[in-house]
């Protein structure tokens, strides 16, 4: 997908746009079930996959990173808690958190219906490119087929 025709300085507009047309096949995936959408402007949007949400079930709490925080690929940047257990969220990329979906912890049910859209977690100003360890859609699907 292209964002060329959009005003790149309007993050909120862009996030609305993302909610509407995000294409799972064009996202990158961490083996730990986070997805990342890499924008042409070097801003990445990250979230967790529908598979992760389905496996966790009964979500009650999410801890978001702070805006301005630095996150590192493969390291914990937040956590999600279900009735059963707490699971760390790992950042798929490195950079600075420029925006978080602050309403999400109060409406975690959104993750059950729109994990790749309205359920986005944070936007990161990327420091360098996406790591080679991230999976494309086909490879990720193969992984979850083996896990599920």
């Amino acid at each position: 997908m292209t964002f060329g025709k959009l005003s790149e300085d309007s993050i909120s507009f862009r996030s609305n746009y993302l909610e509407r047309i995000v294409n799972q096949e064009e996202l990158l995936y961490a083996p730990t079930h986070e997805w990342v959408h890499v924008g042409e402007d070097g801003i990445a949007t990250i979230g967790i996959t529908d598979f992760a949400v389905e496996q966790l079930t009964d979500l009650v709490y999410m801890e978001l990173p702070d805006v301005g925080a630095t996150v590192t690929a493969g390291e914990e940047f937040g956590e999600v808690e279900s009735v059963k257990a707490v699971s760390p969220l790992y950042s798929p990329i490195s950079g600075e958190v420029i925006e978080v979906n602050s309403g999400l912890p109060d409406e975690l049910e959104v993750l059950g219906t729109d994990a790749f859209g309205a359920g986005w977690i944070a936007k990161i100003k990327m420091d360098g490119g996406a790591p080679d360890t991230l999976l494309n859609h086909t490879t990720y699907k193969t992984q979850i087929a083996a896990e599920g």
Partner: protein
Amino acid sequence: MSSTTELLKTPLHPWHHDNGGRLVDFAGWSMPVQYTSIIEEHNACRNGAGLFDVSHMGRFFFADPNACEFLNGLTTRRVHPMAAGKIRYSLMTNDSGGVLDDVLVYHLQDTAGVPFCFMVVNASNRQKILAWLKQHGDLEKLGFEDRTTKTAMIAVQGPRALEIMDPLCETAPSSLTYYHGMMTKVCGVESIVSRTGYTGEDGCELTVPADDAIKIWTSVLEKAKAVGGGAVGLAARDTLRLEAAMPLYGHELTETINPAQVNVKFAINLKDREFPGRDAIAAARKDTTLPRRVGLEMDGKRAAREHSLIYLGDQQVGEVTSGTFSPTLQRPIAMGFMNMEHLEIGTEVEIDIRGKRLPARVCQLPFYSRG
């Protein structure tokens, strides 16, 4: 997710596998942790009737009813003399008073009126208790048989449990009083039926022949579904027992915890009795330096979990042994052990949850009791 190839399987395992059960390793058994959602399964039990496969629990049969007298020498609570038809919850302790297991001892009679003794132990402690029994008595003489793999055990729990079970049994389980049991036919099959459970709800538990387990399970399940119930996995079994403040072996009961710390006075009879650990329990009752079991409630959504530390100001005053978000109360609840001087209801403490201290209050146990 994890490999379950070398794990033990209950007679109901094929059903769990074919019906969305998420199978995990639990004490060496491949068990369903959940089928759908923990909250939905929890509520199905609280509001209707939940079916639990608890076949992983150890089931020991003694043909000789004198086994109750033998077991009475090893249990914290008197299980002999005990009238036929009665069941008692008790602990088994080692010589220093550490808890080896919590068990149910049954004194029942078969349909011909021949009495026998039966005991249910935790899956994780089955071999340990078996060795402990062998160390203290001649099990062969007592007609001992480990029936764990020959039978299945199904718990049917919830406000509608007895109403759905009554028509399926030759003698209605509702005719039993609480903590009583009998041999009767369930779906035409000779079984042990007891009015016991581990959820805080009324209901019964069935010990049935392994070969008939799936048939009985599916018959009961059909009735349960008609009253808004269903199959419940181990995860919701844990949230249910935690709300009911029932101790869980490995958490509130361990070999390093003395029963006097757990507030299970009903399960301890010291007077005129001898059993391993008796004197250690008597001494621990008077020892005010030993922490005691406590209930804690919190606001918000973040639950304290096992090993979270409890603070009063800068002083560490206890540790959490079980915690979850309570589906019924819609708030985090926890049990743990705290120093005696801080146990007053309403005492404000803080719990360290992964580096953040959150407020909690000492509260009355149980967190939930049925209406």
